[in-house]
Structure formats: C-alpha cells, structure tokens
C-alpha cells in the first residue's frame, strides 16, 4: 500500500461517482445510491486488483468480475470507461434512446463479464466459472459483487452452499453491505445479522472491512484467498449514497433521480466541476 495508490484510488472513486451522478441525471434514472455505495470498492478493484486488459477484454487469463447487483451497472461502466475499455463518450448515452449502455449491466459492453439485473443470478454463474477455472488449471480468480438484496434470494444461498462444498478458494464474494434495500432498511425488511457468522457457519472464510477505506479494501483483497480450500467472503460495510451528504444512508436514493440543482450540489461536494 503506497501513498500513490491511495491517491489513484481516491481519484478513480471520484470519477466513478461523478460519472454516475451525471449519467443518472441525464437518464433521469434511479439506483444512484447503490452506485455511490460501491464506488470505492470498484475503484480499488479496477485500479489495483483485477487483472484485466482494456485492449483485450476477452483475454483468457483475465480475472472474472461479475456484478450481481446489475442495477448499479453505471458504476462499472464508469470504471471501464476510465480504464479505456470504451470511449468515455459512451457514458453520455446511458439510459437514452439508441444508447450504448442499458440501465442494468450488459455483457454487450466491452469489459463486462456477465449481464445481470434480476438479483440472485450472479453468484451461481460465478460458482460455475470458478469450477471451470479450477478444472482447467487456470490461475485467474472469480470475484462477484453482491448487494444486500442479492442475499435475500434463495439462489444466492444455493450457490453459497455449493461453493463451500467444493472448496472454491478461487472464488470471492464482496457484499456491498449498506444495509439499505429497495423498500427499506435491512432491519425492517430481512435482517441478515449475524451476517459474517452465517457465512462462517456455511464454510466460507469471512472478513469484515470498511468498504470506503481504500487501504483496508486493498490490503484484504491482496490477501485472497483468505484460506486455502475455502471461498472468501468480504463483508464490506458501506453507506448507501456515500459521498453525497443528503443521500447517505437513505432509502430514497435507491430509486430517486437527481435533479439539475442536486447534480450541481453533489458534484460540488465531490470537488468536481459541474
């Protein structure tokens, strides 16, 4: 962990957040709170962790990254554009007629491994990819980013059990654990606590981290797998809407679109020119 990497993570995170605000403002679309929540995790993944090649998105040895919370796809699009997978101008077409980028993440976009949008789909596919990698003796990793809502889905738990059964230590799940879902706070919908305990009991190697602390995100992800013979689970404590004061921790920022004035104010808070 160097000073420089911290700075580059912070810069990447600001870019991702600013892009997401502009994209959802232009598209009058929702889910910006979910994007801001995982922006720091994505910044570290796409700057310092994932082995990917913008000039060869289908590179065989790439790390496989699946965003299971597909509604936050704009944040991945932003990271991919910043990494040079496609022109930044594509971001301007997000959610618009004849646009290049759909609201939920699509594999038709260079650098996107898998399309999602309905929750509970990412992890089973990630398990299949991890099995395939192990079968082929390949060294790449499979990392799946899920949401709280994803962990309401039974299919996620089906995959949790199978990954442990087969000791898939080339598989990592990161939970964007902001404790807010579409209709309410987790304690009022489906409480998952003790979340880490559940996963430990299910046979995973679990670590809890601050999902907005670059040093903590990086150092933990550099230590994957946490245990030989077990899949790794990163419970990343995050704040929904992180980085925009009036959104932080609110249910409203899951669906609410960003108004003209709010965009200016939000970018100002990020220290970005409107």
């Amino acid at each position, binding site marked *: 962990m160097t000073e420089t990497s911290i700075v580059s993570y912070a810069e990447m995170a600001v870019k991702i957040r600013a892009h997401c605000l502009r994209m959802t403002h232009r598209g009058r679309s929702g889910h910006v709170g979910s994007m801001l929540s995982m922006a720091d995790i994505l910044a570290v993944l796409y700057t310092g962790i994932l082995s990917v090649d913008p000039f060869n998105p289908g590179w065989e040895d790439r790390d496989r990254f699946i965003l299971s919370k597909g509604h936050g796809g704009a944040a991945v699009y932003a990271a991919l554009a910043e990494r040079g997978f496609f022109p930044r101008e594509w971001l301007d077409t997000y959610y618009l007629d004849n646009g290049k980028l759909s609201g939920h993440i699509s594999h038709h976009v260079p650098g996107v491994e898998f399309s999602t949008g*309905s929750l*509970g789909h990412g*992890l*089973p596919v990630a398990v*299949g990819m991890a*099995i395939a990698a192990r079968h082929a003796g390949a060294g790449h990793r499979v990392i799946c980013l899920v949401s709280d809502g994803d962990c309401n889905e039974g*299919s996620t738990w*089906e995959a949790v059990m199978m990954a442990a059964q*087969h000791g898939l230590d080339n598989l990592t799940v990161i939970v964007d654990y902001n404790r807010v879902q579409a209709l309410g706070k987790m304690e009022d919908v489906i409480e998952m606590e003790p979340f880490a305990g559940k996963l430990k009991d299910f046979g995973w190697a679990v670590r809890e981290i601050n999902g907005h602390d670059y040093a903590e995100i990086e150092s933990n992800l550099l230590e994957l797998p946490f245990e030989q013979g077990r899949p790794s689970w990163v419970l990343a404590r995050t704040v929904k809407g992180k980085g925009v004061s009036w959104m932080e921790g609110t249910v409203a920022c899951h669906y609410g679109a960003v108004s003209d004035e709010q965009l200016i104010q939000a970018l100002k808070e990020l220290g970005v020119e409107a």
Partner: protein
Amino acid sequence: MRTAFNEEILKIAEKDSRVFMVLSDIGYGEIEPFAARFPERYFNCGVAEQNMTGVACGLALEGNMAVTYSIANFPTLRCLEQIRNDVCYHKANVKIVIIGGGMAYGPLGVSHHSTEDIAIMRALPEMIVLAPADRIEARAAVHAMMEHEGPVYYRCGYKKEPDIHKCSIDFRIGRSIEVRSGTDITLIGTGTVTYRVCQAADLLASRGISARVISMHTVKPLDREAVLQAAEETGALVTVEEHNICGGLGSAAAQVLAEAGAGVPLRMVALPDTYIHEVGTHDWLLDRYGFSPRSIADTAGKLIGAGV
C-alpha cells in the same frame, strides 16, 4: 428413452472433454456410469435448480458444454429466469434435459406433469426445442444437440416408449421426419406420443384413408416447409402433442399455416387448458384425454368428412 439418452451422452463425453453433467440430485439408476467415469465433470448441485442452471451457464461461458438434467418441470420452470437471463441471453452452450415429458409420471400428479414446457421454452430467443419420438430419435437427438452451439431444450421420455422407426434415420435439428407417406391427411406428432399417431394412421388406413405421419422432433425451429407441403399435398392437418393446447406444436403449426394463407382444415389433439388431477398411469391418462389411436383417428376422419 432416458437410458438411451444417458448412454449417448456418456459416449459423447468420452470423445469431448468439454461435456459436463450438472444435476440437482435427480438421475438415480441412470447417471451413475457418467459419475463414475467422469467424476471431475459431474456436479450434483443438490436440490437447487436455480443454482444448477447458473453453474451450468458459468461452465459453458468458459468454453464447456453443460447439460442440466432433472425430471419434468424441475430444470425448466423452477429456474426459468436463469434459463432466460443467464443461458439464452448469453447464448451459453447449456443443454436442458427433462426426463418424463408430458404425463409420463402419470400417477405422481400435477407437479410432475410437464405439460406447458414446449410453449414456455419455445418463447425464449436462442432456444432450440427438441422432443424425440422414440429411442432412435432420442439417440440421434443427443448428438445433434451437442453439436449445436447454444441453448437446447431436450424433452426426453421416461421409459420403454415404443419405437416408431425401423431403420436408421437422418436426424437434423429443424428437419422433420416423414414416418409414413399419405395423401388424404397429415398427422403431425411430437415427442413420445407419436407412436399413437402411427397407430391412428393404421386405423385410418383400415378405413380407406391414407394418412401421412410426420415426426416433428424439433418444435423450434419448426419445419415450415414440411407443414406447408403437407397442407398443399394432403389438404388437412392434425397435430398431436402431449402438452397444453396453448402454445405448443399445434400453435406453431397454425401460425405457419395462417401466415402462409394455406387455408386448410386443422385440428389440434392436445391437453385441455386445465390441470390433470385425475390419478392414473401414463397410458390411462393418454387414453382418457383423447390420445388413444382410435380417438386420434376419429378426429382426423371427422376433419375430412369421412366420419368415424
């Protein structure tokens, strides 16, 4: 028929190391040879069909061919969204195999009757829908399915369905097989009920009616030419499917005929749009719901005004 399927898939797996079997704790008495021969390509996901389908998709996207396999509606309806979003949208090389299409599991009840599967599977873009009629078609269909790049739905029989073919066949996806020639009417069957269609044609022959019989082993893509040719040459059609009357073979054929302006009489022998809660063996249920050879022959005879 399921034994034929399992024997063929094992043969293919011997030659092609990309073949994986991904199960959900179903296959007792059939799948063991594959599991013993290729333990590293055999995955029992437990009773978890959504995960089974997702895992198969993940395997397939990494360059493998993954076969999901279970009975009746378990590998289709329970995990339909995984089939749509994960498998079909990504054009993943996943083969979805059901054992016991239609009412093959008769007395087990409604949960085990796969009677809307063809309609639902054929509505999915990228999906091929196969329903072989007998063991000879079933064996050939396994090879055709595995040679096809992309999602395939394979509706397999359960056991001991009578064979309709006496010799080797030229099985190609989307190309139906004329089982017997005829000039007065055409009977089109799909799946394991087709042997009863052949028996109906025998009865019609005894009444002086020459019935062509087509095995429509591929419901999607439908063999349009064969349907239109039959309409033109025989002037009347009866479709026979062990499936709800909504959205299956009959609907597919009607669409082709209507769009072509063929204007020929058509009858669909299919299950009524209701759940079959009566208890009985497969054969008993088939007879009861209009699939006896005599009932099929009567439907055909009436259609062309020949009486019964």
